[in-house]
């Protein structure tokens, strides 16, 4: 059942509507689908800044100082503060926003906390949704603060336009502890608490490490800040303002294009229609597809047929790898199924790109129960890329 959601409220920046839209997207309910579709053409204006780094490194303090400076320049700021959930209970104390103390009362600042788990389709998907809502609502800057561990952190920073890695002094050998993936995608390094004695050493270690990179053409700068006094903050904001990459995580024409394309593709897929598969979300290299298990999907043991689960995952994978607009075809696929699914359940498959070169791509798919985000199956597929435009049948 599609509900009427006041999209206009989001676009007008009404705080309550924005917050409720985010909740809908967190819940991945029917309204979410509508919201996502409606917002697709309104995103791409905000500058999305990802802030990552080891815990205790001063990220929150730095963000707080950035907000002060940005606000003094008349910019509206939204923050997605990601806090780790307990791996055992799923609960979380979302304490990051409180560390951004003085902005709690500023109407031009909107902070939303996001717990790291329990998100249908993964944390990166959830963060991307929240960012899109803020973008569409008209915030000039969206800052995403990530937890600092795991693959999802890399996924999240990938969706930012500018990626800052915050390193406190005294890291020493722990610089290696910063995930390799993060180091490669960083657009700038910030040495926080730069008034401490070890700051100089950390700065040189970072520079030395960057000198070893293969691609020396665009070496990320290493900036120093003392958030508590404001030192270096103005320079950092100037540098951010100079970045032209606004909205590139979503190439504005591309994002609309990708969504329209995938909708066309799945609409032209006879088998997808036959099984009852629906496109939920799409962006370059990712796709989310869902279905409800009906009597026609049940096997002789009274449970959802494995082939149906495979089809769901394969369709999501197929859409994800074809989202570039050129043909990609599965040449090797593998599924492992962890639990059985009953009639009436919703299944959601979320496909993301692991790697892609000129001829070959690697994708993985997580399949979960819609009801409670519990794990059902995962797939991995290798695709072969053909340099011809995708042609939807019958168009």
């Amino acid at each position, binding site marked *: 059942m599609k509900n009427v959601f006041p999209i206009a409220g989001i676009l007008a920046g009404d705080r309550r509507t924005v917050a409720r839209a985010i909740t809908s997207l967190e819940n991945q309910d029917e309204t979410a689908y509508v919201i996502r579709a409606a917002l697709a053409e309104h995103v791409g204006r905000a500058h999305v800044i990802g802030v990552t780094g080891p815990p*205790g490194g001063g990220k929150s303090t730095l963000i707080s100082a950035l907000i002060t400076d940005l606000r003094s320049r008349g910019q509206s700021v939204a923050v997605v503060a990601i806090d780790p959930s307990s791996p055992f209970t799923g609960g979380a*104390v979302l*304490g990051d926003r*409180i560390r951004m*103390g003085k902005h709690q009362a500023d109407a031009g600042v909107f902070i939303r906390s996001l717990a790291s788990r329990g998100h249908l389709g993964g944390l990166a998907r959830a963060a991307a949704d929240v960012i899109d809502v803020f973008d569409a609502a008209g915030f000039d800057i969206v800052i995403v603060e990530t937890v600092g561990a795991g693959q999802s952190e890399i996924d999240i920073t990938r969706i930012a336009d500018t990626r800052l890695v915050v390193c406190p002094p005294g890291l020493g050998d722990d610089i290696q502890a910063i995930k390799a993936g993060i180091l490669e995608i960083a657009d700038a390094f910030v040495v926080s608490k730069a008034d401490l004695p070890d700051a100089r050493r950390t700065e040189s270690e970072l520079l030395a490490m960057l000198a070893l990179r293969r691609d020396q053409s665009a070496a990320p700068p290493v900036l120093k800040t003392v958030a508590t006094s404001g030192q270096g903050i103005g320079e950092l904001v100037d540098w951010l303002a100079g970045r032209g990459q606004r909205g590139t995580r979503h190439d504005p024409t591309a994002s609309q294009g990708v969504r329209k394309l995938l909708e066309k593709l799945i609409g032209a897929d006879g088998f997808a229609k036959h099984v009852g598969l629906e496109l939920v979300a799409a962006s370059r290299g990712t796709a989310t597809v869902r279905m409800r298990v009906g009597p026609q999907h049940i096997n002789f043991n009274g449970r959802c047929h494995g082939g149906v689960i495979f089809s769901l995952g394969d369709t999501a994978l197929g859409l994800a790898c074809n989202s570039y607009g050129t043909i990609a075809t599965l040449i090797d696929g593998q599924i492992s199924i962890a639990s059985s699914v009953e009639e009436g359940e919703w299944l959601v498959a979320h496909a993301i790109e692991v790697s892609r070169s000129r001829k070959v791509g690697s994708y993985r798919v997580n399949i979960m129960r819609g009801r409670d985000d519990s794990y059902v199956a995962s797939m991995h597929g290798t695709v072969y890329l053909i340099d011809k435009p995708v042609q939807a049948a019958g168009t």
Partner: protein
Amino acid sequence: MNKPAAHIAADELTQASARWEKEFSKGAGDADEVVNRSDIKVKPLYGPTDWSGTDYLDALGFPGEYPYTRGIYPTMYRGRSWSQRQLVGLGVPEDFNARVKEMLGLGASALSLIPCNSVYRGYDADEVPAELLGTCGTVINHVEDMQRALDGVPIGDLSTAMNDPSPFTLLAFELAVAKRRDIPWTKITGTSNQSDCISHFVANHMFFRIALQGARRIVVDHIEFVNKHVPGWNPLSIVGQHMQQAGATPAEAMAFTLCSAIQYTEDCIARGMDPDSFLPRFTFFFDISVSLFEEVAKFRAGRRIWAKLCRERFGAKDPRSWRFKFHAQTSGVDLTRQQPLNNISRVTVQAMAGIFGGLQSLHTDGYDEAFSTPTTEAARIAVATQNILREEAHLTDVIDPLGGSYYVETLTDQMQGKIESIIDLVDATGGMYKAVEQGLVQQMIGQSAFKFQKRVDSGEETVVGVNAYQVEENPTDYPSLEYPDRERMNSQIGKLAQFKANRSASAVEKALDGLARTANTKDGNVFEQVVVAAEAGVTHGEICGTLRREMGFGHPLTVV
């Protein structure tokens, strides 16, 4: 200390011990292990194999002699009883005055003024919601309020404690009152109670107005000023009570307090002060829980450790510098809302623990602590409790009566071990300020609080009336204090307006300017400017507001 007492043959003792153990096991069987709040195992019996007393002079010493384990003065309560220093604070200055006179008439020998929560947060009465005024403390915003509060109170002869964190406006007001009454500041005695900014930053959070580093600087300014001009006043009261109330175990509370004391001492030394010039006026403020023996051991261990720190770590030479002086308050968190009259028994046990522990001054809680600011009756019983312990139970007759007990001496040593290992941990982190900024202290306290709550919820820790021995009760059966009269409070706010209208605007402006300027320079004594401002008629809210602007607003760092 496993050497048997000299006059008993070693093997005879071992045999007798084994005999008893056998009989005990037969009777008690598989009794659960007992652990106290500081996580120290408690045995059913202690004897000469646990503690032999052979190094009496080094480990214990006589009262008044290093390491002061048995007491900081040679005479202790035989010479002078502990001070009965009850906290008084409610309503308007006239209410405070009436209650204080009553307390003094009943035998209290010192007074402790606790201001309204709005004052704690640095605001005047005209800046806050009226409902919140005067409910937990007295509204005192300027020198004339203090005049009325202390009307007829001989401040030149009586020890007054002001519960007042940076920037110590209450003392400033009292000094201004003394000047008006022609009482020389050299005759003013008392303490800036709870002046320790670190403990407010970490726990309690009641008394925190200015950013931590600003508060830190003013503490040292305050010490310097008081040393010079009010030599009978103790400028620093380092607090363990907040942390223990927040859930720290007794050992943790003592350890963290000593760590804070180390910080303040180092700050003063860095200022160029000689340890012997300020250490004699450092005082401490602790919580006393109902865990009787553990508290006694905690205080005795504290005395011993502090003496050693002062003599060896800080190099103080004057024996007065090595003395661990402390005020203690019976613990409110042990008191219950259910069957509140039971709290009288609890307070009695807590008070005894403090007395056996050798405190210098004591506040006993009212039995209605869990649901009200004390009514007159509850306050009266609290003072009577101290009188009974002193004069009927004769607890002042013998110094350190539990000294020499195999249990208490062993426990004192064990508590010392625990406390010192925590001090080492904080030292390794870089000192108390660093440990607090990193959240280490808050985390440890939070974990202890959580652990204790789990023990209560599971029934492992009994709380009479709450998880055992409950009865059906009607909570409205017990009287609670009426809220301050709205009329009186409005009249108080009216008086504030009048005061502001009558004072010299130029004197106020000049004083605030001086205050702001001094706050922005490294030299210059901020507290001195606060005193000048108080005399010029500046209000508490104006002083705090100016310092917040210059030095930052105080936001405690909480960790869950």
